[in-house]
């Protein structure tokens, strides 16, 4: 009997939940807002699916109905990726220690 590849993916999924659990508990509370914006950005890796959808129907016509949804998803995910990472960067840049600002 072979193991269904789904089980492997499920294992990755569950182990990642555990990793997420421990990693997120170690995040300092003062960085919870950047945490939210960065998780937002990384969950936009869903763009992978959008790109596949957009490029898939390209034998012949570019804008088939399913690739239109792909293109729309690319825009949405791209807003999130750029917006998420950049706003996180902007926030993190502001966190300074006491000695930095001594005049």
């Amino acid at each position: 009997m072979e193991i269904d590849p789904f089980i492997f993916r499920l294992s990755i999924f569950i182990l990642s939940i555990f990793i997420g659990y421990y990693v997120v508990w170690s995040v300092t509370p003062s960085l919870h807002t950047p945490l939210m914006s960065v998780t937002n950005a990384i969950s936009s890796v869903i763009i992978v699916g959008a790109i596949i959808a957009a490029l898939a129907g390209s034998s012949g016509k570019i804008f088939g109905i399913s690739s239109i949804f792909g293109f729309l998803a690319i825009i949405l995910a791209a807003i999130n990726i750029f917006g998420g990472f950049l706003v996180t960067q902007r926030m993190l840049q502001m966190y300074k220690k006491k000695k930095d600002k001594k005049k």
Partner: protein
Amino acid sequence: MISANLSAIFYLVSGILFILALRGLSSPDTSRQGNYFGIAGMLIAIIVTFLTIGNFSYTLIYVIIFLLIGGAIGAFIAFKIPMTAMPELVAGFHSLVGLAAVFVAIAAFLNPAAFNLGLVGNIKLASLIEMSIGAAVGAITFSGSIIAFLKLRGIMSGSPITFGGQHLLNLILGLGIVVLIFYLCKTQSANVFWTLVIISFLVGILLIIPIGGADMPVVISMLNSYSGWAAAGIGFTLENTALIITGALVGSSGAILSYIMCKAMNRSFVSVILGGFGADNSSDDKKEKRDQKPVKSGNAEDAAFLMKNASSVIIVPGYGMAVAQAQHALREMVDKLKKNDIKVTYAIHPVAGRMPGHMNVLLAEANVPYDEVFELEDINNDFANSDVAFVIGANDVTNPVAKTDPKSPIFGMPVLDVEKCKSVLFVKRSLSPGYAGIDNELFYKDNTLMLFADAKKMTEDIVKNLD
């Protein structure tokens, strides 16, 4: 074109980089590096996807154009958004992830061959379940986040919207989603799929409208978690490791944040979801009672005098500070105090503001060094040894009633022991109760001096009086 195995390994690498991105946030020192890991992970995932498809026809140009359009919009928002508007921004971004998940699921349903999931009308059973879960959770995330966005932005009233049979309706719709997924697997019918998506949109709206403004930190964290699960659902459909790992990370991150927020309010997750909290139920006789109690009020001069003669001051910021944009004036005030050798620290309650960590970001924006900012449990004992507590824009999180009155709706919620300070300065526009809709005993204490004014204006006036 690279092989499926190689691309799977690259996706794993990008998943690991995302883990490191979150790991970096354990301290502000490592956080910036963490963000670069995240960006690197994203780059790898996108490039590998292009290489795996290996389709370099002119369609690719369209993909890149659309990517850049979205990117430009995102970058524009990221640079323009004021820090006080972070909660709305995050809610808005969640809705985009949700909608993107729905779109990808729709694309996969319409063109399963592109994703190796079988043919139209004969999609693999497991994939069908995975994509419908992804679509349903994505749709709930989308419409729920839109409602949260409207509430946070003030376009929609923050007070809860409730009606009879609400929970029953939600339950029925929830069960309806399960039944529809079941039917979808049997019939593979497109109509069932569309119905599923529409009902999920509806559930998202119904789920968030009964939740009041005070519970917004929980709602945002919860939607954060949903957007993760939606991504994971799509990850299973696409058999993509990077998406599965990320979805799990984001899902658990949001869940932990919701838990922390609930604990900080001493509310159970279920009671937050059921909603109705923070409704305007202050009856008339309650108001009368409030008016009769004597309150000491003062002006900027009194406040400046008190603080000048103190040796230690603790600042307690809250959402009101964000609304009044008073953080810069506050920093100025603190600088003046420090010049007089007064020790100043900041005390932040976990639910101060409208999202986790909101106050910390605002203070960081005003150049307050993060090592002067303390969390509730680290600073609460210091109030007893401090001379002045300066409460600016916070209310419920300082209410001693949470410790004394078991009948109070916020009883048991951990609060800042502000009343233990020798004197309390309370900047507030009026005596109106906070989001929880309850009166704050602190207003009537002998050692409390109320400063009735806009937070920013009052702080600026105090700064003038400190010279």
